[in-house]
């Protein structure tokens, strides 16, 4: 959306970059004396390393402020309460790396949850419902994917539209009804751990999916293609990458995964209502950006996403235990987001500030005007 960084890079003044990795070579290539601070900072900080440190800091903070934080029961709760967000963050990561965005994830979850509740109330067998939910997720993703790739619309606008459409369909299906008579066989998925472990089902699913998405993204030709189309769609097209097909697939996978998250969410709360997980898309996007995935596409990693999930969930949980107003934890999420865009940009910002200060001495002008000469 915001082109400034790229144009800045073209001038060669600073690697005014996007989060993870990749800046090391540029820093090494530029003269060391001119950029003391930056050169010292950049090779040491891979985004993921910073995230891991933050995660450790949160665990220490949580342990110090509450005796309950470092208990297995608490870790279980932490996992249960953020499983679905974490799961939805995985396909979102791939979509953002490919240069698109999917804001309809939580609405797809809601539509799936409403469908599950509705069909169950009509006495459908659960297995048949699962098939329907899978199909629903695929169709939801396909609509997004085709509108983006075949009609050629910006994914931001398309998925704001389908956000309304899918959430609206959930509302049409269930209206003001609440369905909650789900059988214990399924609702225990939400509250019991996987047998012989202390891991909630949703976290186990997240781990399995994270491995699969990680392998696809980092170790297959398709994964490299996703980075390529995010970095430069045209170059990717000319290189023979099937940009449209892969992007459509990514949206379909996202729809499918979110539909599954809808079933998990419904069973965890034993409740199907039309506004399940409403507004959660922004949390998912926040996690992905916190993970160091560039909003412009082309950069990011699954390791980063896993760490960002830990930071996000750990922080919410630690704040919850310190009696901080639970609903206001968004302040911390927002602050983390700002940190995640400003820290990687800090060297470029300092650079610009210094040049501004130098230019200021002979002639003074308004700060904003001068900053954007």
């Amino acid at each position, binding site marked *: *959306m*915001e*082109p*400034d*960084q790229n*144009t*800045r890079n*073209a001038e060669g003044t600073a690697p*005014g970059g996007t989060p993870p990795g990749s800046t090391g070579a540029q820093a090494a290539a530029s003269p060391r004396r001119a950029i003391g601070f930056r050169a010292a900072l950049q090779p040491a900080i891979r985004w993921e390393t910073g995230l891991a440190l933050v995660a450790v800091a949160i665990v220490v903070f949580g342990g110090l402020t509450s005796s309950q934080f470092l208990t297995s029961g608490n870790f279980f709760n932490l996992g249960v309460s953020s499983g679905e967000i974490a799961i939805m963050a995985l396909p979102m990561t791939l979509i953002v790396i490919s240069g698109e965005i999917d*804001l309809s994830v939580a609405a797809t979850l809601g539509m799936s949850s409403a469908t599950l509740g509705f069909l169950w109330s009509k006495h459908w067998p659960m297995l048949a419902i699962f098939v329907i939910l899978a199909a629903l997720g695929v169709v939801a993703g396909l609509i997004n994917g085709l*509108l983006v790739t075949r*009609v*050629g*619309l*910006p994914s*931001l*606008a*398309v998925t*704001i*539209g*389908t*956000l*309304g*459409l*899918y*959430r*609206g*369909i959930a*509302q*049409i299906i269930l*209206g003001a009804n609440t369905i909650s008579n789900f059988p214990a066989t399924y609702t225990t998925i939400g509250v019991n751990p996987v047998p012989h472990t202390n891991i909630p089902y949703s976290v186990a699913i997240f781990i399995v999916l994270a491995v699969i998405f990680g392998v696809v993204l980092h170790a297959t030709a398709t994964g490299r293609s996703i980075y390529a189309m995010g970095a430069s769609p045209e170059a990717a097209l000319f290189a023979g990458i099937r940009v449209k097909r892969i992007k459509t697939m990514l949206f379909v996978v996202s729809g499918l995964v979110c539909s599954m998250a809808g079933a998990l969410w419904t069973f965890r709360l034993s409740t199907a209502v*039309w506004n399940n997980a409403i507004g959660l898309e*922004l949390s998912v*996007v*926040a996690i992905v*950006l916190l993970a160091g995935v560039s*909003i*412009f596409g082309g950069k990011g990693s699954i390791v980063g996403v896993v760490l960002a999930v830990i930071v996000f969930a750990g922080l919410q949980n630690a704040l919850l235990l310190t009696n901080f*107003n639970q*609903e*206001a*934890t*968004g*302040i911390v*999420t*927002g*602050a983390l*987001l*700002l940190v*995640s*865009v*400003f820290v990687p*940009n800090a060297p470029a*910002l300092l650079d610009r500030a210094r040049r501004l200060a130098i230019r200021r001495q002979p002639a003074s002008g*308004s*700060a*904003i*005007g001068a*900053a*954007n000469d």
Partner: protein
Amino acid sequence: MSAALTERRDPSSPSARASSRKLTERVSRIRESGIIAVLIVFVAVTASIQPRFIDQANIQFVLSNTTVYALLALGETMVVVSRNVDLSVGSVLGLSAYVSTNLFGHSPGIPVPVVFLAGLGIGLSCGIANGLMVAIGRVPSLVVTLATLYIIRGIDILIVGGNEVVAQTLPASFIAIPRANVLGVPYLAIVIAAVIGAGAYYLRSYRSGRELYAIGSNPEAARLAGIPVGKRVFTAFTVSGGIAGLAGVLWAAQYQTIDSTAGTGYELTVISAVVVGGVAIFGGSGSAVGAAIGALLLATISSALNVLGISPFWDLAIAGFLLLVAISLDRLISVKLMAALRQRSSGVGT
């Protein structure tokens, strides 16, 4: 898109210039006339089924429901036209609504204009914060305003706690604001229409307004052309914040019960209205009037469903569907236009 095309006139041949201008003019008219036509057809069909739809009470209802969204859409248009986005408007509205009207309870007898100024001040501060981070920090506005959406809502929740402002603490003159009307048309709707008209005129006819379109069409070219990109973008965010602050006070006057959830999710509705109204989500084209009509159309649809006895549960799905149809149609038209222009210019060349 069409703004970019207008600049592609071939100066060497006057006939090509005239014909291509006619073409672009026709299409630029379509941008708004399309949605106006949809609105008229929609109103006509609904009214023919249920005449109650166009009686005075219902028109008043629709107009006063539109005011807040249309006002927010004006600020959002300025931001979106410059190829940015402001996701924080709903949170700013909520914070402003509570903090400003809470003054009535704290210091009874406070003049109403002071409360509006307080709301404006809160909105401006939020807008300035967004603008500084986007313009000087050079970070994507989607990320910055997503973060401030959370932060401002969090601050709101901390300030509000479990409290709420209730109608009893609000003075009668304040509550009367959205209800006053002239010849059946809400006074407020007229004022806001005038404000939007002024905003649209500024964007269309003032240099700094035009520069927002230039920035949205091609930020790099705008910078090279000497446009103070950062300054203009900063202004757009500041205005959007200030408008959201004012809208918060109006929202409070309209709904009268203000807790920490006021305005939640408004950002997406406002962006829908803007995009349905023909503003390109990647900047460079669209008008504030279109955006306001977009907001009016969404409010009209929701009211029509109500009047026709269709469950309000259909609102959201229809609004979402309409947004998809609007952007798809816009895309098809611009593809057709592009092809037509290319054919013309190649025809002239030979």
